[in-house]
Structures are given as C-alpha cells and as structure tokens.
C-alpha cells in the first residue's frame, strides 16, 4: 500500500474505531439498564408479596 493509501486507511480506521467504541459504550449502558430493570421488578414483587399475604390472612 502506498503512503497516501496508508493515510486514507488511517483516517477511515479512526472514524470506525470511534464509532465502534461508541456502540460498545451504549451496549454496556443498555446492559446495565436491563439489570437495573430486573432488580426493580424483583423489588416490586417483594413489596407486593407481603401485601397479598396480608390480604389472604385478613
């Protein structure tokens, strides 16, 4: 590859790497949000279960 071609490849590679890093960061964030949703669902279920038991006993 010519020197000129290497510079062109480097410019396009930089753009690709930055965009890839951005996508990875967003993917990690979505994963974290998914875990948080699961935790909140669990929390909501724990809160609902004693209320249901109380209704059943009452």
């Amino acid at each position, binding site marked *: 590859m*010519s*020197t*000129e*071609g290497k*510079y*062109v490849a*480097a*410019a*396009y590679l*930089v*753009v690709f790497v*930055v*965009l890839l890093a*951005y996508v990875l960061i*967003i993917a990690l*964030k*979505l994963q974290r*949000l998914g875990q*948080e*949703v699961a935790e*909140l669902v669990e*929390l*909501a279920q724990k*809160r609902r279960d004693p209320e249901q038991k109380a209704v059943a006993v009452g």
Partner: protein
Amino acid sequence: MAASIALIFFYAPVDEDGLNQKIFYFHVPIAFTAYACFGWGGWKALRHLWKGEEGADLESYVAIHLGVIFGALTLVTGSIWARFRWGHWWEWKEDQLVLFLVLFLFYCAYFMLRYSLPPGPQRANLSAVYALFGVALIPVSVLAIRLSQRFIHPVAFNEHGTNMAASQFFTFCVSLVAMLTLAATMYSVELAGKRLDVKLRELREALQ
C-alpha cells in the same frame, strides 16, 4: 453509510489531490455534522430557556455530546489529511483550523461546567446559556475560510458554487446524508438511554 463508502472508493474520481482526497468525503460531512449537533444543542438550549420545554436540557446535552465526538473526529481526520498534504499535523496560522479547535474546546468545557454543578434547574439553566454562547462561534468557524487571507485549507464551496466535479459532489452529498443520519440515530439511541435512566431512578426512589 455502506453506499457512501462504495461511492467514495468505486465511483468518485481521484483528482489532482490524489488518493488523499478520499478523506474529504468523510472529513467535511463529519465537520458539518458536528456543526449541526452544536446548532441543535443550541436550539434545544434556547427552547429550555425560552419555553421551559421539558426534557430540552437533556436533548441539548446529548446533541452537544455528539457534537464533541464528531468535532474530535473532524480534527483527527483533518490532521491526517494535513500530515500528507502539508507535511505537518497542524497549522496554527490557518484561521479555520484554529477557530474549529476553539469551538471544540469551548464545547468540551461545557461538560466541565455541567458536572461542576449539582443536578437541578440551576445546572440546566447555566448549561443552556453556555450552549447558546457557543452557537455564536459556529458561523464564525464556517466563514473563517472566507475571512482568511491564506487559503491553505482547500475551498470546496465558494460564491460560484461547488469547486468539484458533479460525481464528486454527488458522492459528497450521499456521505453528508449518511453522516447526518448516523448522528440522528446516535442521538435517538443515546437520548432514549438517558431518558430510561432518569425514569428508572425515579422508579427506584418510589419503590424504596
């Protein structure tokens, strides 16, 4: 984006600038996209201050965040082009380069200001005012090449129209549309994530 890359490498002719000119098709659309992001961020900041639009502060923040990413890419791709064409990475005497760097650093400082304040209306208002000040730099940066007397930086568009062949201009337009679409997609995804984050925090507070 795939169509744009195909056009750049298989359709657009190589001119007297050589293969290095292929960087132009990404560098200039990325720069225009950075301006568009900063402009959109400024518009949302204005909406926040003027109408008190709910969520406009977050939208302004996300747009500026993307503007900084595209701004950094503009500087890096431009420097790579300059290294081959001019023999050095940067030219301090070139007004357009320096003004773009000033614009970029100005918006980098936006994050320092934003995160130095606690979340709340004060942070939103100060960030919006700062974002609006930055918008004034955009036309200066765009017109700098016309104000400059040196003209080392190539001029793709002048008062007589485009300074390139029709096929090159077509490729450039496709690249610009691709880059703006990419930025719009990134904006939507990041904004949706931020909004979801806020809602989850509210839900957690309500449950605990």
